[in-house]
C-alpha cells in the first residue's frame, strides 16, 4: 500500500523517481486506489501551478545593470575566484528539459483523465477491420495546420517550460481553401486511377451538424464564409451517412466544384504561392505549435490534374493533406479520454541522415450511447517541444504557408476540431544532434483541446520521445506509407527537401507498406504516383496547369 502522504507520489508525477524504482512502484500503485486518486490530484495541482507560475512576467535587468555586466565582460582577465559550488559535476540537461514537460506520468496514465465519461464502458466492440472502415467513413474533418510562434522566444529551460503551456488558438487559419474530405466506405476504383466524387459539405457534415449544433454551426459558418466548401470522396460509393441520393450528391458536388475552383485554383493570380516550412533549429525555436484544422481536399484537385495528364501546379500539392488523405489510422487506445496521441519515429525515407517523427492525434470513436459522428474535441492545439540537446533542427512537413501570411489577431476563429474516430497525422523531419553532449530525449508532445459544450481547456501529454527507433524499413506500414505520401508531395513540388527519391522508389515503398487497403484509398495513391511518373517521363508538355473547372 502507498499512503497518499507518501512523497514518492509527487516524485513519481514529477519524473523524479529513479527508473529502477518506477516499475515496482507502479505495481503497488495499481493496488492502491487511494494513492491513484492522490496521484491524479497531485498531477492536476502541479499542472495548475506550472501554468500559473509560467504566466508570471519575466522582468529582466535594467539597461544600467546590463551595462555594468557588459563592462565586466569586456574587461581584461580578472583574477580567478573559486567556484561557489562544492565542485563541478555533470548535470543531466536531459533531466532538466524533461522537467520542462513537467507532469509526466506514464503514457497510459496521462491518457486516463477521469472525466466521468462512460464511453469506455459503452464502447462498442468491433473488429479492427470494421473499425478501419468506420475511420474511413468518419474522416469528415478539416486539417489545416497553422504553425504558431510562441509569444516570446524561449530563452532557457525555464523559459521553454514557460512556453510549454498551450495557448488558446489565435492565429488565422491559412487561406488554403477549406474543403472536406470524405472517404467512401467501400469505394471500388476504376482502372484508370482515381475517380473523384464530390459531395456537398453539409451532407458530409450532416451527422455532426445535427447532433452538435451548438459547436458545429459557428464553425461551419466560418468555413463557408471563408471558402467555398466542397468535399471530395475517392471511389464511387457514397457513405450511407450522408443520406442524400447519389444523383443529388453529384449535382451538389458539381456545383460545389465549380464554386470552389476560383478559391482554390492555384493559377489564380490573387493567391500567393505556398511555401514549405524550413528547418528550424531546436535551440532557437524549440516549440512548434499547431492549431489543427486540416483537410484533404487538395488531393482531389491533385488527382484531377494528374489523371488529366497535367503536371500539378505547386499550390495544389499540399503534402500534409496527402499524408492524411491516404493514412489508415490505428485503433483508438482504451481509455475514456476523447483524444489520444501516438508517436512513431523511424528513418527518413528521402534523407538517410535524418529521422522522421510521426505524431498521430486521434479522436475516440463515438460510443454506442452517443450519436455517431459527434465531435469529440475542438480548438485542438498540438505543441511539440524539441530538445536542443537531442535535436539539432526540425521541419514540419507539409502545411505550406503563403509567403505573405495575413495576421489579424482580432479575427480569432475557432479552429481545430477532431470528430469522433478521426485522426490527424503530422510528420516532422529532424536532424539529430550528434555531438558528444547529446541526450536521448528528443521531443515532448502536448495536446490541448476543449470538449464540445465546455470551455475548460483540457490537456494531454505524451511521455517524452526518446532517441531510438529503427531504420526506415523496420517502421510500421503506416509510417512508411505516410513517408511515401510526403516524399511524393515533395517530389511533385520539386521541394528543396525532396532529397534522394524517385517516383519508382515511392512506388516501391507504397506497394510494400500498403497493407490492408480496405477503402482502396492506398491503391488510389499508387495510381497517382504512376500517373505522375508517366507525366514526369514526358515532362515539358505536361506542365500546363489548366483551370480545373475547364476540365470535362
Amino acid at each position: 500500500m502507498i499512503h497518499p502522504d507518501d512523497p514518492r507520489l509527487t516524485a513519481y508525477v514529477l519524473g523524479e523517481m529513479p527508473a529502477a524504482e518506477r516499475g515496482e512502484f507502479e505495481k503497488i500503485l495499481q493496488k492502491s486506489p487511494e494513492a491513484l486518486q492522490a496521484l491524479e490530484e497531485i498531477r492536476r495541482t502541479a499542472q495548475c501551478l506550472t501554468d500559473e507560475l509560467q504566466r508570471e512576467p519575466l522582468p529582466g535587468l535594467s539597461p544600467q545593470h546590463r551595462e555594468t555586466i557588459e563592462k565586466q565582460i569586456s574587461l581584461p582577465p580578472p583574477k580567478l575566484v573559486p567556484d561557489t559550488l562544492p565542485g563541478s559535476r555533470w548535470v543531466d540537461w536531459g533531466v532538466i528539459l524533461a522537467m520542462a514537460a513537467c507532469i509526466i506520468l506514464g503514457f497510459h496514465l496521462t491518457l486516463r483523465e477521469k472525466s466521468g465519461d462512460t464511453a469506455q464502458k459503452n464502447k462498442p466492440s468491433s473488429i479492427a477491420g470494421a473499425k478501419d472502415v468506420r475511420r474511413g467513413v468518419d474522416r469528415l474533418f478539416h486539417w489545416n495546420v497553422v504553425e504558431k510562434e510562441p509569444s516570446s522566444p524561449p530563452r532557457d529551460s525555464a523559459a521553454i517550460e514557460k512556453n510549454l503551456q498551450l495557448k488558446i488558438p489565435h492565429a488565422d487559419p491559412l487561406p488554403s481553401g477549406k474543403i472536406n474530405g470524405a472517404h467512401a466506405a467501400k469505394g471500388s476504383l476504376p482502372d484508370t486511377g482515381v475517380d473523384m466524387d464530390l459531395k456537398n459539405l453539409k451532407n458530409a457534415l450532416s451527422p455532426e451538424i445535427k447532433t452538435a449544433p451548438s459547436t458545429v454551426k459557428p464553425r461551419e459558418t466560418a468555413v463557408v464564409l471563408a471558402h467555398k466548401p466542397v468535399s471530395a470522396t475517392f471511389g464511387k460509393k457514397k457513405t450511407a451517412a450522408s443520406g442524400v441520393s447519389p444523383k443529388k450528391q453529384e449535382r451538389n458536388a458539381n456545383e460545389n466544384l465549380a464554386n470552389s475552383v476560383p478559391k482554390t485554383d492555384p493559377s489564380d493570380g490573387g493567391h500567393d504561392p505556398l511555401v514549405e516550412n524550413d528547418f528550424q533549429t531546436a535551440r532557437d525555436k524549440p516549440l512548434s505549435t499547431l492549431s489543427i484544422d486540416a483537410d484533404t481536399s487538395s488531393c482531389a484537385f491533385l488527382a484531377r490534374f494528374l489523371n488529366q495528364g497535367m503536371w500539378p501546379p505547386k499550390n495544389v500539392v499540399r503534402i500534409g493533406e496527402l499524408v492524411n488523405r491516404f493514412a489508415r489510422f490505428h485503433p483508438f487506445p482504451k481509455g475514456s479520454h476523447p483524444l489520444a496521441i501516438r508517436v512513431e519515429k523511424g528513418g527518413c525515407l528521402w534523407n538517410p541522415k535524418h529521422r522522421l517523427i510521426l505524431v498521430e492525434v486521434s479522436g475516440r470513436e463515438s460510443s454506442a450511447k452517443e450519436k455517431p459522428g459527434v465531435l469529440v474535441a475542438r480548438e485542438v492545439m498540438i505543441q511539440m517541444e524539441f530538445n536542443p540537446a537531442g535535436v539539432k533542427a526540425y521541419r514540419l512537413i507539409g502545411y505550406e504557408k503563403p509567403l505573405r501570411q495575413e495576421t489579424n489577431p482580432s479575427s480569432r476563429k475557432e479552429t481545430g476540431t477532431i470528430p469522433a474516430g478521426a485522426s490527424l497525422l503530422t510528420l516532422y523531419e529532424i536532424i539529430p544532434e550528434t555531438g558528444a553532449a547529446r541526450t536521448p530525449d528528443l521531443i515532448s508532445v502536448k495536446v490541448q483541446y476543449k470538449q464540445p459544450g465546455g470551455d475548460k481547456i483540457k490537456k494531454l501529454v505524451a511521455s517524452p520521445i526518446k532517441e531510438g527507433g529503427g531504420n526506415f524499413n523496420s517502421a510500421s506500414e503506416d509510417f512508411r506509407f505516410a513517408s511515401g505520401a510526403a516524399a511524393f508531395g515533395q517530389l511533385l513540388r520539386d521541394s528543396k527537401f525532396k532529397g534522394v527519391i524517385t517516383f519508382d522508389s515511392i512506388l516501391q515503398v507504397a506497394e510494400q507498406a500498403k497493407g490492408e487497403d480496405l477503402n482502396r484509398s492506398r491503391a488510389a495513391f499508387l495510381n497517382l504516383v504512376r500517373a505522375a511518373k508517366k507525366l514526369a517521363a514526358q515532362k515539358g508538355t505536361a506542365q500546363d496547369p489548366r483551370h480545373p473547372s475547364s476540365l470535362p
Partner: protein
Amino acid sequence: MNSDHSAADMEWVREALRQHEGPLTRYAMSLTGNLDLARDVVQDTFLRLCEADRARVETHLAEWLFTVCRNRAFDLRRKEGRMTPFTDSMMQTQKAGDPAPSETAGREDSTRQAMEILKTLPENQREVIRLKFQNGLSYQEISRITSLSVSNVGFLLHTALKNMRKQMMQLEGEMS
C-alpha cells in the same frame, strides 16, 4: 584549471545573461520582494559569473546561477536589515487588473485560484515550488541551491502540493 578570457570565450557569459536574466530576476524578486533589489542581486550574480572558471561552471550553469543569486539575495537582505519575509507582492501587483477576456475564457477556476493559495504557504514551500514549477529545476538541483537534502526537497514539494490541493478543494466546495 585556468580559463582563457578571450573575447570569444566571454561570449558565453553574454549568452548566459540572455538566457537566464529573466528567470533569475523573477526568482530574486520572489526572495527580496523588490524589483530594484532583485536586479542588483542578478547583476552581482553575473559579475561573479564573469570571474568564474567557465569549465567548472558551464556544466551546471542554471544551478550555479540560482545558487549564487539566492546567496546574494540573502546577503543583501541581511545587510540591509530587510528581514522581509518572502513575498509575492510584486507578482501580485503585476498580475492585478482584469486579464483580457480571451485569456480567461478557457482558464479553469482552479488554476486562477492557485496563485492565491500559493501565497498562504510557508516560505520554504513556496520557494521550492517556484524552483520546481517555474524554473524546471530537478530535486537534485533544488537540493544544491537551497542546501536542503533531496528527500527534504521531495517532502516539501509533496507537502506543498497537498496543502494547495486541500485549499483548492475547500474553495471549490465553498463556491458550489
